[in-house]
């Protein structure tokens, strides 16, 4: 369907009219018979069709629901598309699958928080340090002990989140939690409080599919974010601009859509917040807040933090910025203009519902276009957890996983800077690609039986085909299969290697192939 541009005038409207007319006529004709006095036939063709109506027809086009499309959706949204999962999705249909993926089912009780957090030990150690005299040797030692305890707690937190990423019954929600972690990038390296990182993680999980404005407001009061971007202690006498700037540049609008004056005004709106040393939580102190008149993006008023967030999130630019980023994350490339506009509309008309935007992404025909499939590079966490899911393996010892992720450039809770992680090809360098290949063999020991039940008796050709499709559902090709068979024969297959050996050799081939990085 040709995109309809703005301000195209009658000519374009006429062209689209001729394309869309049959459908409308067909649906209207029944209606027309019933209420002919309202819709005389000659008037339908005489009136230019309003733009909105034409796009309604476009919206009705749904992607056809094939196993390939189902696998593509599952790989992108949940990092895994095992045959059973694909079959279930195909049987249920796109709508029901999306409903399931976007559900709000709580799963906290499946993943109890590590004891170091529930026991309040860290807060206790912090109080101890705060109680000792400054510059004293005792304080330095207690501080070092606290630092070690925080780092150990962070490692437990990383393991806990990896377990959630692996096993959550709501995988898309976990994927979005990671997305928001990269978007509202906050690093333990500066924050130094493992429990604050946990609270922020829960915030992304609880609010990440809801209204964007609610998410942004909650993030502005999140202790980890407040520490990371120096919101804490910002007072009306000395407003700190760090958060205000990143809020506009990185979190809501993007560079070039606000002025320095806007940054200064917004900074005033975020004054008065303080982190309580005892609890680590944020508290608002009215006396330190700048209650005065402010003008933000042309809107005047006695804006406080909430008002400020509302103004920013209602900007049309915010809709484009956020929906564009979400699309790029799942699609791996830029969207065409009509899709972008549909996503923006979805965002604006639902008050910024991320769930609605995701639904629009995953029901957009462009998402399923051939040019998009199998062309997105997996990030390190997706690569690691996705492979565990594919092989139905449990998470590895936390230290092995976190050191692998560090080598590959994506350490949970430690994005490199406030801009988060650069995705796509930026994940790949000589070093990281060699590391992915090496780690694939070191980390993953699949159970052959569960991986390929019934394949043991199959001829090599069929084995290569089925294993390949299982491991690379969206970018397996006959060329790849031939390479696999060639590698197998060169490795001396047929010289006494049993079928188990053959399956393992094929699996190793696919796992270490450069194209395994694609999804």
């Amino acid at each position, binding site marked *: 369907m040709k995109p309809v541009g703005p301000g195209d005038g009658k000519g374009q409207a006429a062209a689209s009219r001729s394309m869309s007319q049959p459908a409308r006529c067909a649906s209207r004709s029944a209606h027309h018979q019933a209420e002919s006095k309202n819709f005389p036939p000659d008037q339908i063709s005489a009136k230019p069709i309003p733009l909105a109506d034409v796009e309604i027809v476009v919206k009705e086009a749904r992607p056809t629901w094939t196993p390939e499309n189902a696998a593509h959706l599952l790989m992108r949204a949940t990092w895994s598309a095992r045959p059973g999962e694909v079959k279930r999705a195909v049987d249920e249909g796109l709508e029901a699958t999306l409903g399931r993926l976007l559900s709000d089912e709580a799963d906290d009780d499946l993943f109890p928080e590590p004891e170091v957090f529930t026991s309040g030990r860290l807060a206790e150690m912090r109080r101890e340090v705060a109680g000792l005299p400054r510059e004293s040797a005792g304080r330095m030692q207690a501080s070092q002990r606290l630092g070690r305890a925080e780092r150990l707690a962070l490692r437990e937190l990383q393991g806990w989140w990896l377990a959630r990423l692996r096993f959550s019954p709501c995988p898309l929600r976990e994927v979005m939690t990671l997305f928001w972690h990269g978007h509202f990038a906050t690093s333990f390296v500066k924050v130094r409080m493992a429990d604050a990182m946990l609270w922020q993680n829960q915030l992304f999980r609880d609010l990440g599919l809801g209204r964007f404005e609610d998410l942004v407001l909650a993030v502005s009061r999140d202790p980890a974010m407040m520490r990371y971007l120096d919101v804490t202690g910002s007072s009306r006498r000395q407003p700190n601009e760090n958060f205000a700037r990143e809020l506009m540049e990185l979190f809501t609008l993007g560079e070039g859509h606000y002025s320095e004056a806007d940054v200064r005004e917004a900074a005033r709106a975020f004054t008065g917040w303080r982190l309580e040393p005892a609890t680590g939580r944020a508290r608002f102190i009215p006396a330190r807040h700048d209650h005065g008149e402010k003008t933000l993006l042309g809107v005047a008023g006695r804006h406080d933090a909430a008002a400020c967030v509302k103004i920013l999130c209602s900007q049309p630019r915010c809709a484009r910025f956020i929906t564009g980023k979400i699309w790029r994350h799942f699609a791996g490339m830029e969207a065409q203009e009509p899709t972008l506009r549909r996503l923006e509309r979805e965002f604006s008309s639902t008050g910024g519902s991320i769930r609605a935007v995701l639904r629009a992404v995953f029901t957009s025909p462009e998402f399923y276009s051939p040019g998009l499939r199998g062309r997105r*590079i997996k990030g390190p966490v997706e690569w690691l957890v996705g492979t565990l899911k594919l092989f139905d393996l449990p998470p590895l010892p936390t230290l092995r996983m976190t050191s692998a992720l560090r*080598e590959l450039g994506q350490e949970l809770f430690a994005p*490199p800077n406030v801009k988060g992680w650069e995705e796509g090809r930026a994940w*790949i360098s000589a070093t990281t690609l060699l590391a992915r290949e090496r780690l694939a*063999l070191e980390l993953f020991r699949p159970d052959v039986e569960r991986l390929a039940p019934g394949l043991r008796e199959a001829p090599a050709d069929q084995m290569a085909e089925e294993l390949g499709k299982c491991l690379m559902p969206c970018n397996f090709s006959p060329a790849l299969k031939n*390479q696999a068979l060639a590698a197998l024969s060169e490795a001396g297959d047929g010289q006494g290697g049993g079928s188990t050996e053959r399956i393992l050799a094929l699996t190793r*081939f696919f796992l*270490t192939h*450069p*194209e395994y990085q694609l999804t």
Partner: protein
Amino acid sequence: MNTPLFTRRRFLRSTVLGGAAAWTLPAFVDNTLLALESAAREMDNAPTGRDHPILVILQLAGGNDGLNTLVPYADDLYHRARPRLALAEAKVLKLDDTAGFHPALGGLRGLWDEGALAVVQGVGYPNPNRSHFRSTDIWQTASDASTVERHGWVGRYFDACCQGEDSTAGIAISPSEPLAFLGKNRKAIAFRQPADLRTAETGGEEAVMEEVSAGGSSIEALGEARGSHEEEAPADFLRRVALDARLSAGRIQSVTARFRPSVTFPPSRLGRDLELVSRLVAGGLPARVYYVSQGGYDTHAAQAGTHERLLAELDAALTAFAHELRAQRNFDRVLLMTFSEFGRRVAENANGGTDHGAAAPLFVMGGAVRPGWHGKAPSLDNLDRGDLVHTTDFRSVYATVLESWLGAPSEPILKGRFPVLDFV
């Protein structure tokens, strides 16, 4: 003799000749194969005829105390600010009648006398940041104190100037690529020792070569894609990086196995890392920038002993490196610069150490260096909240290295104009 290299080359050639006559071997594969072959020939440690300049960046991580490295021994303010930590005039290795080196830097003193060492004084930047991470990022990305840059300055140099080359332009002896090397196109490789580059069992060069030649049109696609990496399809991009990575890894491993230094390097980690760099330089790798790091300089407490040990390690490793490069007749091609995320406070603290500061001197070493003093010594009585005020912006040092050494335009790479100094 390393026969597998010949086998692969013959294999690839024969496949091409045996196959469609219209195929030509893409230049990058050809170049790298030639390089592999030349490395495989019996050679001693003489330079292989490559003559491009090489930059070695040595990071002193933690914040090196510049005042006790380049000591203003004649200034009373120095001694008054550091009753315990100040180095006695009698111990300092005097370079002139105002300043001298820490006593542990005897080797560097020798290099200074030989005219192979330059010191740039008072290097820093406006609005100094005293956080390790933030300040290191600022140095690595050549950003202002208030902006966050995604890419490193050397990465931007690679993007601007090393596009045509398909092998790694940067080599870091470290567990992961430093931010300085990060560019839009990732053209660097990082490893702690050559064994880290061992490739996967069933991967290996044979499989990739096989794939390249068996992939039919993919050779042409790979060859054509050279010019326009942006439009390259993801699968081709991955295959190209994989091939590059393997060829670089193979070449690195073969070179490091083949070339032995004639000088004995100290057994410290820095010594081993610089020895590895010297072997890679001897092997004629096309890499232009090397990166090594020495940690431990964050001397908040009990500085005297720690700092002496670190400087002694630094001194021994740099001196051995210089001697080895001289023996290889490569000393004129190599420029080594040190950097640290900040210096330290002028006044000592209550724990026998110093806290995070700002400006500090840095060293530049090499056969082509214009030796001696550069920049201006920062004033000890005009401090900024207890810290030295910089007299040279570190980006001037980068601009000098880019323009006068690497021959690259500094303004687009550093996103600003910084005056070029004359230490090289």
